[in-house]
């Protein structure tokens, strides 16, 4: 059964069919909310509120787009409204990138175990500006194309590409500056 059929099921009164969408997308939804809110409690509230909004407005979901994109857009808007933050304003990332750019070269690549690598990556993602961390999350965790990311965040496509490029660069550089290593795959 595809997602549009499930949506139709929910619309025809089968509320429990909505559980599929909760189960499938809740991890990514909470990851997005966490990147914007910065704490788990708010992120959980945002996800809960977003799913309820999605359920209420399911009739307005157009089947020509992906359900996940539509849902993540709701999560994004709810989180931004809750935190009252302007996540695309400020060039903290750019400054950080300039500060550490000299460290990126000639740093030995270290192969490390899974846990250590996870600790480093999580730490860097938390220290990064919320917008940059969000873009990396959307692009690499869900394999969302730039077009879908633009729909979720409300930015235009060239802007997403530029910000994604900077976020990628900043991520690498922050790993080097904070941990003195370049991460490699195992």
């Amino acid at each position, binding site marked *: 059964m595809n997602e549009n059929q499930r949506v139709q099921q929910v619309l025809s009164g089968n*509320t*429990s069919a*909505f*559980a599929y969408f*909760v*189960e499938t997308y*809740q*991890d*990514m*939804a*909470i*990851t997005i909310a*966490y990147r914007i809110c910065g704490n*788990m409690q708010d*992120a*959980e509230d945002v*996800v*809960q509120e977003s*799913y*309820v909004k999605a*359920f*209420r407005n399911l009739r307005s979901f157009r089947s020509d787009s992906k359900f996940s994109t539509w849902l993540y857009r709701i999560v994004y808007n709810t989180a931004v409204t809750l935190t009252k933050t302007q996540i695309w304003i400020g060039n903290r990332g750019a400054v950080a990138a300039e500060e550490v750019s000299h460290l990126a070269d000639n740093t030995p690549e270290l192969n490390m175990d*899974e846990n250590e*690598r*996870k600790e480093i*990556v*999580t730490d860097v*993602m938390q220290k990064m500006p919320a917008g940059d961390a969000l873009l*990396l*999350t959307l692009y*690499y*965790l869900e*394999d969302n194309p730039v077009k879908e990311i633009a729909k979720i965040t409300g930015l235009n496509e060239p802007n997403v590409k530029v910000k994604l490029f900077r976020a*990628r660069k900043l*991520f690498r550089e922050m790993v080097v500056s904070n941990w003195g290593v370049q*991460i*490699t*795959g195992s």
Partner: protein
Amino acid sequence: MIIMIDKYNQQKEEDKLRQILSSTKINAPENLEHRIMRQIEAENALVPRNGKRIKESGNLLKEMGSIFGIMYAVLAVMIAGVYFLYGKEFLFTPQFVGAVILVASIFSLLWLISRLDSHLREKKRIR
């Protein structure tokens, strides 16, 4: 050839980042799904109430129609009576226009009172 090598390196780099960042996905707490579904089911339980609201707005139109319907019927009788008893000219006199305004005001007041009454009843019912 150089372009192909560049693309290959770029792809390799992308795959590396994807692999690294995949560990940062947060797992939702176990009870979150339950919380969400419970709230949605509670919301869904309110649907019949919405249906009643639609019915209430139907009642509002019906009530409005009946009060103003009677008002227009009374005005029509008044106009017809005056026309046949006193002629066309009397319809434009200040006395008659005043009488029409008085009748319209009385019926409007009646409608206003009935609306206020049903509003207060509804408020009491919700409490």
